[in-house]
C-alpha cells in the first residue's frame, strides 16, 4: 500500500522540527500575534452565548451518533445526492481519490481547475497528483494562495499562511503576481481579488471540500469568508467535492448546532460571511454536473479505536491550535502534516496507522497535557486523554528501550514503600552534587532538564523521615 500523504515525506520528528522553528524569531512573532488576537476574539464570541456548553454537548452527541451509524448514514447520503442528480464516488485511500478526481477533470478536458480551501484535498495531496496528471489546480482561498505562490507548506487548519505576516505576504505577491502592492491587509486582499477574478469567470471545473453533508437531504455545506467559495461553487459547469466519510450530520436540523459552534470557534464571528448549501444539481443555477468523492484514507481504522475515534468528531475549527502553548511556539509545520496542533497530534498518527513511523509516533508527545484544547473544543474531543492513549500505543510498538527499562524500574520501586524509601535515601546523596542548594548540571537524560533549569538539592531528610521521627 502507498504511504499516506497526510504526513509530508521526509519530515523530521517533532522535537527536531521544533528545534528549528523555535529559533525562527519572525515565525515566533507572527504566531504570537495571530494566536493572541484570535484567542481573545474567540473568548468574546463564546462569552456572549449563554447556552455554549449545551451546544457543545449537542455537537458531541450528534457526531457520536454519526460515528455509530456511519454506514447507514453514508448510504442514505449517497441515495439523497444521487436522487438530486449528483454522482457519488468512494475512495479507500489518497491514491484512489486522486485518480477519481483526475479522471473527472480529464473527462472535462480541464487543464486548470479552481479550488476552494479544503483539508481533505490537502490531506490526500490532490494538487500534486493533479499537477502530475497535467491539471493545474489554482487555490483561491487567500491563505492557500499565499502558501501556493510562496511554494510553502500550510501551518494551520483555518489559516494555512498564519506563519506569514503582512510584509512577507506582500513580498510573495509582488514576486509572483508581478504587481506593486502595499502591506496593508486591504490592499493585499484587493491584489488577490484582481489576480483571481479572471480565473473565476472562465474556469469550467471547480474542486471543493465540505464542512458538512446532511445525510437525509443530500445537502452539502461549505462555510467561508471571502466569496471565493461562492465563486467556485456557483460559476463553473462542473463541481467536484471531496470529503472525509465522517463529515456527516444526520438531519438538516442538526446543522443548527454546528452553524453556531463552528464560526465562533474558528474565526470568532457570530457567523462567517458566506455559507453555501447545495443539494445535487439545481437546473438553471450553478454547476450542472456534481460529483461527490467520499474518502476513507485511514478513517475506518481510526473508527475501530474506542478512545481514539473521538478525533473523528472534529469539525476543523482550529480553536485547539490557537490556544495550544506548544503550537503557538513551534508553528504548524513542525507537526509535518496538514493537521497540526493538538488535533493533529491525535488525528495524524491515527490516519497514518503505524506507530513504528517515528515522525507520526512523535506527535502524541508534543503536548504538555495542559488541557486548553479540550476546554475550547466545540465537539468536546478529550484531546489529552487521546494523547495519553496514543502514547501507550507508541510505547507498546517501541518495545524494550532505555526508557522502558527505567520506567519498569521506577514502577518496581514505587510498588513498595520500603524500596521507595531506600531509593529516596540513595537519591538524597545527590545533594552532594549541589552548590548553594541547587544542582545546575546533571548527566543525560537529566541534562535535558538542567540545560535551562536548576534542580533543587534533595533535602537531608524526606517528609516521611521527619514524620517517623516526630509523629510516628
Amino acid at each position, binding site marked *: 500500500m502507498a504511504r499516506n500523504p497526510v504526513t509530508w515525506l521526509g519530515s523530521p520528528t517533532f522535537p527536531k522540527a521544533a528545534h528549528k522553528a523555535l529559533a525562527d524569531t519572525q515565525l515566533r512573532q507572527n504566531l504570537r500575534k495571530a494566536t493572541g488576537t484570535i484567542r481573545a476574539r474567540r473568548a468574546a464570541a463564546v462569552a456572549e452565548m449563554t447556552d455554549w456548553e449545551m451546544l457543545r454537548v449537542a455537537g458531541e452527541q450528534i457526531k457520536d451518533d454519526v460515528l455509530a451509524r456511519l454506514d447507514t448514514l453514508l448510504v442514505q447520503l449517497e441515495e439523497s445526492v444521487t436522487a438530486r442528480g449528483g454522482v457519488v464516488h468512494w475512495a479507500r485511500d489518497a491514491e484512489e481519490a486522486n485518480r477519481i478526481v483526475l479522471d473527472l477533470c480529464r473527462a472535462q478536458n480541464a487543464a486548470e481547475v479552481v479550488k476552494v480551501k479544503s483539508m481533505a484535498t490537502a490531506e490526500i495531496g490532490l494538487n500534486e497528483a493533479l499537477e502530475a496528471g497535467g491539471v493545474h489546480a489554482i487555490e483561491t482561498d487567500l491563505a492557500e494562495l499565499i502558501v501556493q505562490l510562496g511554494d510553502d507548506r500550510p501551518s494551520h487548519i483555518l489559516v494555512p499562511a498564519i506563519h506569514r505576516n503582512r510584509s512577507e505576504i506582500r513580498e510573495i505577491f509582488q514576486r509572483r503576481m508581478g504587481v506593486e502592492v502595499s502591506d496593508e491587509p486591504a490592499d493585499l486582499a484587493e491584489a488577490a481579488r484582481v489576480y483571481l477574478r479572471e480565473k473565476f469567470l472562465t474556469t469550467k471545473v471547480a474542486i471543493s471540500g465540505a464542512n458538512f453533508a446532511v445525510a437525509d437531504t443530500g445537502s452539502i455545506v461549505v462555510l467561508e469568508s471571502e466569496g471565493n467559495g461562492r465563486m467556485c461553487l456557483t460559476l463553473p459547469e462542473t463541481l467536484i467535492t471531496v470529503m472525509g466519510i465522517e463529515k456527516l450530520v444526520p438531519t438538516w436540523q442538526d446543522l443548527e448546532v454546528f452553524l453556531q459552534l463552528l464560526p465562533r470557534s474558528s474565526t470568532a464571528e457570530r457567523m462567517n460571511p458566506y455559507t453555501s448549501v447545495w443539494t445535487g444539481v439545481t437546473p438553471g443555477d450553478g454547476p450542472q454536473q456534481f460529483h461527490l468523492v467520499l474518502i476513507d484514507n485511514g478513517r475506518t481504522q481510526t473508527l475501530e479505536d474506542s478512545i481514539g475515534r473521538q478525533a473523528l468528531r472534529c469539525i476543523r475549527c482550529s480553536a485547539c491550535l490557537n490556544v495550544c502553548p506548544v503550537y503557538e511556539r513551534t508553528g504548524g509545520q513542525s507537526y509535518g502534516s496538514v493537521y497540526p496542533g493538538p488535533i493533529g497530534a491525535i488525528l495524524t498518527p491515527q490516519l497514518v496507522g503505524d506507530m513504528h513511523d517515528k515522525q507520526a509516533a512523535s506527535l502524541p*508527545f508534543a503536548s504538555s497535557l495542559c488541557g486548553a484544547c479540550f476546554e475550547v473544543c466545540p465537539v468536546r474531543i478529550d484531546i489529552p486523554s487521546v494523547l495519553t492513549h496514543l502514547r501507550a*500505543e507508541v510505547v507498546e510498538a517501541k518495545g524494550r528501550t532505555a526508557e522502558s527499562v527505567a520506567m519498569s524500574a521506577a514502577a518496581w520501586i*514505587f*510498588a513498595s514503600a520500603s524500596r521507595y524509601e531506600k531509593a529516596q535515601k540513595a537519591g538524597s546523596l545527590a545533594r552532594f552534587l549541589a552548590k548553594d542548594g541547587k544542582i545546575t548540571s546533571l548527566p543525560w537524560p537529566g541534562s535535558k532538564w538542567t540545560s535551562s*533549569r*536548576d534542580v533543587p538539592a534533595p533535602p537531608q531528610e524526606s*517528609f516521611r523521615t521527619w514524620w517517623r521521627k516526630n509523629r510516628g
Partner: protein
Amino acid sequence: MKVALFATCLTDTFFPSTARAVVRLLERLGCSVEFPLDQTCCGQMHFNTGYREHAKPLARKYTDVFQNYDYVVAPSGSCAGMVREIHPTLGTSPPRTFELAEFLVDVLGVTDVGAWFPHRVTYHPTCHSLRMLGVGDKPMALLRAVKGLDLVELPDSTHCCGFGGTFAVKNAETSTAMLADKMRCVLDTGAEVLSAGDNSCLMHIGGGLSRLRAGVRPVHLAEILASTEEDPWRATP
C-alpha cells in the same frame, strides 16, 4: 475530622517543608492528620508517558493505602487530578481525594485560615488544578485573606508553564520556550514570591528563575497558608 495526607512522591522527596506546612495548617484548622507510610506515587508519570500498565498497580496501591479515610488531601492539583480523573479509568475506585485549596474552601468551608505572610506574591494556577479539577478562583480567595500579603495578578496566568512531566525532557526546547514566557510574566509582576498549588510546576518555573538568578522565590501555597505571625514562614536551607 480525620484526614489523610497524600504528600506525593515529589513533595515527600524534594519539598518536605510543603508537606510539613500542610500538616501544620490542617491541624490548626482542627483536623486530625495522618500520613500512611505505605504511600508512594499515584502513577501519573507512568500514565502520562504511555506506561499505562505500570500505572495500574500504583493506582491499586493508592486505593489500598487510603481506602479507610474520609478524605485524602494532596498538595498537588495534578496528582489529585490523576487520582480523581484517571484512576477510575484504570479499574480502581479511589477514596475521596482533594487538592489542598479545594479541601479548605469546599470541605472545611474556610477562606481565611489565619495566615500572615508579609510579601509581594503572584500565583500561577497550574493547568490540572484549573482544567482537570476546576479549582477555579479558590487559591486566590485564600491568598486574598492572608494578612500582610500583597497579591499581584500574574499576566496570562492560565497559560501552561511548560512542565508537563516528561514533556519537559522529551520536548525540552519547546518546554523551555514556554518557561521563558512564564518567567517573563512572573518578573513583570515585580513579585518576590511565586506561589502555586503544585511543586512540580514550581520546580520547573523556580528552576528557571534560579538559573537566571532572578531573585524570585517559589513557595507552595500550603507554606504561605501555614505561616502565622507567631510562627512565620522561613526559607528552608
